């Protein structure tokens, strides 16, 4: 398998890794560990990727399975001004709104964070259900609740 081709595909979809890791990592060390674990797991699992699903869907599943089974350090996420961008991220003009959105989503319970992230990225309830192993109805219920919570949080943040 071509390592360059693999890394190129990962670079093309690095926004998925970035977004998910930033929703769950508590510290810089956590972030580094998760990035490293996801890239390594993706590399080892990539030969089994047959292209039946889109690469982005495959990567989403792999990221979520890695993040949730990884023994992350316990700790509260501190919402300081430097938590998200740390001056390293090239941000666009909506950075304030994006920051507020991140902060709000990170307040949600961990499973809901995954569901809302998938939903905002355009996955339908059936696809989300398949990725998580739950029924589309339950996905619908959780999205409804999470959106209500988000609306309240976005008013407050």
């Amino acid at each position, binding site marked *: 398998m071509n390592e360059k081709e693999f890394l190129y595909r990962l670079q093309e979809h690095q926004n998925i890794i970035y977004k998910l890791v930033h929703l769950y990592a508590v510290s810089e060390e956590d972030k580094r560990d998760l990035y490293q674990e996801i890239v390594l797991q993706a590399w*080892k699992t990539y030969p089994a*990727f047959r292209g039946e699903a889109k690469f982005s869907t495959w990567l989403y*599943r*792999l990221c979520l399975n890695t993040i*949730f*089974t990884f023994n992350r350090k316990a700790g509260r996420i501190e919402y300081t001004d430097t938590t998200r961008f740390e001056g390293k991220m090239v941000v*666009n003009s909506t950075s304030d709104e994006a920051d507020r959105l991140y902060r709000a989503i990170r307040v949600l319970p961990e499973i809901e964070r995954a569901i809302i992230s998938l939903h*905002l990225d355009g996955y339908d309830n059936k696809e989300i259900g398949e990725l*998580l*192993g739950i029924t589309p109805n339950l996905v619908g219920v959780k999205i409804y609740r999470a959106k209500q919570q988000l609306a309240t949080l976005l008013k407050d943040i």
Partner: protein
Amino acid sequence: MMDIENIWQQQGKGEDDMLKELLKRSPEELTSKWPLKKLRANLLRGIVLSEACAVIYLAIIIYLPVWQIITSMLILILFNTWLSITSWKLYKKIPETISSALSLKQELEINYARFRQWFAVQERVSLFIYPIAATGGFMLGGVVGSQKTVEEFLYNPLVLSILAVTILILVPISYFVSRWFFNHTYGKYLKKLKKWIEELQ
């Protein structure tokens, strides 16, 4: 209200230095901290240790061919063989990597089940192997130290009482220590897995 779908989809389109650096390196250079990988390594280490102990027990039989010692060492060898086989079966069941085909719930269930199975093995070890090994060591040390035969050494009621107390104390202690150690190391992790599995029911 902001257009959250649009904002979310625009995220991560820039470059994060840490991720960018990582994607320049060969994935082969990266190291894994994945819990199931650590568990596989623990099991393999346990198998090697168990087999090394069996070799030592065999050597004791050769150098001290007294029937009581031979019997206790053979029991230990049997336990160690059972432990190695059980550990090997579990080792073979543990996947080397995350599955990109399973759902999150299935992946969580696999992780949870494998850790519980490993704990069941550790519990049996703490109940049978550690106390028996300690008792064997007590007898062996006593015989070698006192320069007496096993019968002569055990004939003393005080020695027998000490042996009985040692076993009575060691069995619960090793059981509770192993439980404490497991909970201390993996308790929080397993609680989280269980909570997420329940949330996904």
